[in-house]
């Protein structure tokens, strides 16, 4: 009763219709004048404050992709029918779904949580993981693994000490508690990320092909159910300007600036959802992420065939002072929305009950074409749902190749001083091995549970994470994420393809056949024509590259405005490639352990040091042209590696990327502490380069493999028959302490280990 009296008046549709001249804070909400005018036209009057809240958040860059959308047609244009064959659900849904055979489907997607993780590293990263996991759940899949591509500023900058440990603890704290193995990711340091760390999170889910669920509300009379955590004032900073307008004295209570995750609630929600799917009581489902109920209701309704009616006052609240506008926009975590047939409602609620998950019927699917939301009986929203969810503004932003690029590309590594003696090569190897980007990452990855679920066949520090999907047959998937932002800075088209190539190569190296791609495109401001040009080049690079490789992009995420002042981060199009393997027990690990096995170098090395780690670490240099992309060579190499795994021809394989052959040899040696003797003069002569270049060049489409002597002839015959360039460059040898690069230098295991392992603990402690 008293509550009734204290409730301030709300801005109803009726009221809005009679008060056309009310001044509305559209600019504060991030809308442009023409966008506001457009909204007025759509609703045929001024919007209510609740409607304005919904449009403003759904038409934001983050939700509407208004700057990037026009370039997305490149995806479709570059996807052939053949590529579409394995694609069960494509771009546009919560996450893409691919067919991996034998009735199994896999869904995977990456998302960014960059800005929140800078503000509050632990919670930002934790809720980033939580969000992407719910995306995967909303496809009807059981999440089976997570990955975390991370980028930070300078390792030695004091703020990195604040951000990195918090982010890592947050990724671990949330993912570990959910019981999802973390099977890979990246840790990259570059000054360009100092004020804009990148926290991307990827989740993989699996399901039977028959169990795919889509986010749509159809079937008139079906119930709309909100379930999971209560709604609080999380993440509604912006919209509080609206709420305060209607507030009487005192104003709204404080709204939290950050969202706090509750992984336990999410774990229970996962199990609850899976039980709901199993029982077949869900007609449509949508996760609540960015834009909360605004997004869930408008997208569900817009993807369905009717309208929707919602009683907003039924939403269970954590904070009773929340206003309707705020409830619509709250980004409280660990919530889902389902569409349920009335006859199945009881069963639905029995399952949520069993898991102690709060579930509330908010309304139902109607036969109109309007999304109508009421607040204690008053209509506060009455809009066409498509106009909110899908018909936001799009911009063809100006693009222009940055003027600095010519000078940058002109300034290659040719003139840099290079080591010429064995001792100098050795010193550079150790320097690189200890450098922030190439050092051992176990300080980070040991904080992640890689074993939970018992299906992990490969994880860090191997080239790809590999998990079993089908326990009967061992069928499973391999995933890797990669991006070298320096390459993308030098040439965004090539840089994006290089990220794709590296990720593809990592997956193939583990023995899996690459099948599909997701991306997380981290860029500066789209209002900067130079950034927009980088963005368009990157998308074009990925789309055309995928077409060449014959694997489709299934979905992804765009994160703009990663810049400090007018300085943008390096363009960072993170690529995730997913591959399939009939039996993951046959995966190829990255380190050798059997003495006597022969080491082969696959692929050709060119003088390609521009943008690479040697130039970066030894000279602090960035300039020139990134390595040449050769996707045909990547495909051939991939086939060789996959066949070698299937036929048992190799016992270990490690791809060559950052730091080149030198680092790959050191890593393969360090993995199990078994040494190797290597000779490089012949292969250097073959490729017309010196030993230094052979060791440190970052030419693509290369890998090293360890071949059992009994398989050597079969292996080399296969390479010869298929035209794969290969050279016998060494032998695994437990009598050699560490690495012996003959005629150049030796370096002991202990020295390698110390260089590799001490870097992160020296900064962050034990």
């Amino acid at each position, binding site marked *: 009763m008293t509550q009734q009296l204290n409730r301030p008046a709300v801005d109803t549709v009726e009221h809005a219709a009679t008060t056309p001249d009310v001044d509305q804070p559209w600019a504060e909400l991030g809308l442009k004048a023409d966008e506001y005018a457009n909204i007025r036209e759509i609703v045929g009057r001024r919007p209510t404050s609740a409607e304005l809240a919904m449009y403003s958040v759904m038409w934001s860059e983050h939700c509407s992709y208004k700057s990037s959308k026009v370039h997305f047609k490149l995806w479709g244009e570059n996807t052939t029918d053949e590529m579409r064959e394995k694609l069960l659900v494509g771009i546009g849904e919560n996450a893409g779904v691919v067919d991996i055979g034998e009735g199994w489907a896999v869904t995977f997607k990456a998302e960014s949580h960059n800005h929140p993780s800078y503000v509050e590293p632990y919670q930002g990263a934790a809720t980033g993981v939580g969000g992407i996991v719910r995306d995967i759940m909303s496809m009807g899949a059981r999440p089976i693994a997570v990955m975390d591509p991370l980028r930070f500023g300078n390792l030695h900058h004091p703020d990195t000490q604040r951000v990195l440990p918090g982010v890592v603890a947050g990724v671990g704290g949330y993912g570990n508690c959910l019981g999802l193995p973390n099977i890979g990711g990246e840790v990259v340091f570059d000054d360009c990320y100092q004020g804009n760390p990148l926290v991307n999170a990827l989740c993989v889910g699996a399901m039977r092909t028959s169990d795919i669920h889509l986010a749509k509300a159809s079937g008139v009379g079906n119930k709309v159910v909100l379930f999971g955590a209560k709604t609080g004032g999380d993440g509604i900073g912006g919209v509080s300007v609206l709420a305060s307008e209607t507030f009487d004295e005192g104003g709204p209570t404080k709204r939290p600036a950050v969202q706090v995750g509750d992984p336990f*609630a999410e774990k229970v929600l996962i199990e609850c959802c899976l039980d709901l799917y199993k029982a077949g009581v869900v007609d449509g489902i949508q996760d609540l992420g960015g834009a909360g109920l605004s997004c869930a209701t408008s997208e569900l309704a817009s993807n369905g065939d009717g309208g929707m009616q919602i009683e907003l006052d039924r939403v269970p609240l954590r904070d009773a002072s929340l206003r309707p506008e705020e409830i619509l926009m709250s980004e409280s975590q660990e919530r889902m929305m389902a569409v349920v047939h009335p006859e199945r409602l009881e069963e639905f609620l029995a399952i949520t009950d069993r898991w102690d998950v709060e579930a509330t019927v908010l309304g139902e699917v109607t036969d109109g074409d309007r999304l109508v939301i009421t607040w204690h009986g008053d209509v506060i929203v009455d809009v066409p749902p498509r106009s909110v969810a899908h018909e936001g503004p799009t911009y063809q932003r100006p693009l222009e190749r940055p003027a600095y690029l010519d000078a940058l590309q002109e300034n290659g590594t040719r003139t840099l001083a290079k080591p010429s003696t064995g001792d100098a090569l050795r010193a550079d190897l150790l320097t690189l091995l200890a450098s922030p980007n190439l050092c051992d990452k176990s300080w980070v990855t040991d904080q992640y549970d890689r074993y939970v679920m018992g299906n992990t066949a490969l994880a860090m520090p191997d080239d790809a994470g590999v998990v*079993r999907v089908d326990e009967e047959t061992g069928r499973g998937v391999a995933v890797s994420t990669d991006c070298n932002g320096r390459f993308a800075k030098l040439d965004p088209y090539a840089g994006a393809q290089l990220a794709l190539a590296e990720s593809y190569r990592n997956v193939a190296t583990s023995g899996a056949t690459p099948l599909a791609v997701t991306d997380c495109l981290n860029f500066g401001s789209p209002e900067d024509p130079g950034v927009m040009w980088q963005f368009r080049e990157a998308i074009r690079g990925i789309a055309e590259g995928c077409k060449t490789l014959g694997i489709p992009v299934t979905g992804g995420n765009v994160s703009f405005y990663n810049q400090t002042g007018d300085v943008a981060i390096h363009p960072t199009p993170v690529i995730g490639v997913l591959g399939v393997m009939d039996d993951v027990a046959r995966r190829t690990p990255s380190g050798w352990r059997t003495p006597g096995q022969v080491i082969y170098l696959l692929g050709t090395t060119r003088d390609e040091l521009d943008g690479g780690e040697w130039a970066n670490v030894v000279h602090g240099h960035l300039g020139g042209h990134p390595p040449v992309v050769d996707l045909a060579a990547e495909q051939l190499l991939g086939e060789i590696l996959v066949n070698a795994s299937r036929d048992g021809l190799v016992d270990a394989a490690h791809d060559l990327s950052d730091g080149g052959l030198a680092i790959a040899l050191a890593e393969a040696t360090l993995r199990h502490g078994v040494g190797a003797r290597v000779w490089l003069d012949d292969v250097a002569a073959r490729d017309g380069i010196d030993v230094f270049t052979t060791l440190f060049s970052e030419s693509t489409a290369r890998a090293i493999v360890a071949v059992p002597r009994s398989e050597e002839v079969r292996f080399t015959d296969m390479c010869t028959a298929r035209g794969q360039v290969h050279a016998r460059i060494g032998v695994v040898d437990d009598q050699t302490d560490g690495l012996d690069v003959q005629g150049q230098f030796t370096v002991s295991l202990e020295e390698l280990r110390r260089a590799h392992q001490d870097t992160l603990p020296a900064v962050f*402690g034990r």
Partner: protein
Amino acid sequence: MKVGVVTFPGSLDDRDALRAVRAVGAEPVSLWHGDADLKGVDAVILPGGFSYGDYLRCGAIARFAPVMDALVPAAQGGLPVLGICNGFQVLCESHLLPGALIRNDHRKFNCVDQRLVVENASTAWTSDFEAGQEITIVLKNGEGGYVADEATLDRLEGEGQVVFRYAASNPNGSYRDIAGVTNERGNVVGLMPHPEHCIEDGYGPSLDGLPFFTSVLRQAVSA
């Protein structure tokens, strides 16, 4: 033989434990935290995970689940019970095992392939090991530091109730390198490392987890 595995809200490794039971040829039985019934099982595993988020203290809330009302007297009566990680924490909170587990001394979650020494090979869950044997088992936790007062620690050592000790290095600051303990009778065993992740070739660092499950199987056969 039937081995029950309890699922609490927030349990994570329950399915892995069921798989391990199946792998040695026993019949796995799922037990639900809310049931006050052990379904006639011959042994029980409390699996790893974060029951109730482990928010208060690990295992503190799970201890009061209805299923524990049935389990505690059964364990006191001799039913073989294995607590793995969070399960170990639940057993300590329930006072079925002495001591407690606190935050790792380095304050981070830690996932490593850990070397252990089997100190006591005569419990219900370790009879297929040899005393003094070194094994490698997955360790993964944030609150795995085993603590108890000096008198308790002395008593545990004296009575042979220390079942596993960390070898090579102590990963979490556990007093006296203790990784696992048993009750006086030897039927209740708790340890932080995860044997259920070490039972299949290709998945996990070793097969050193199998003897846990074959031990209890043999015990039931001979009982």
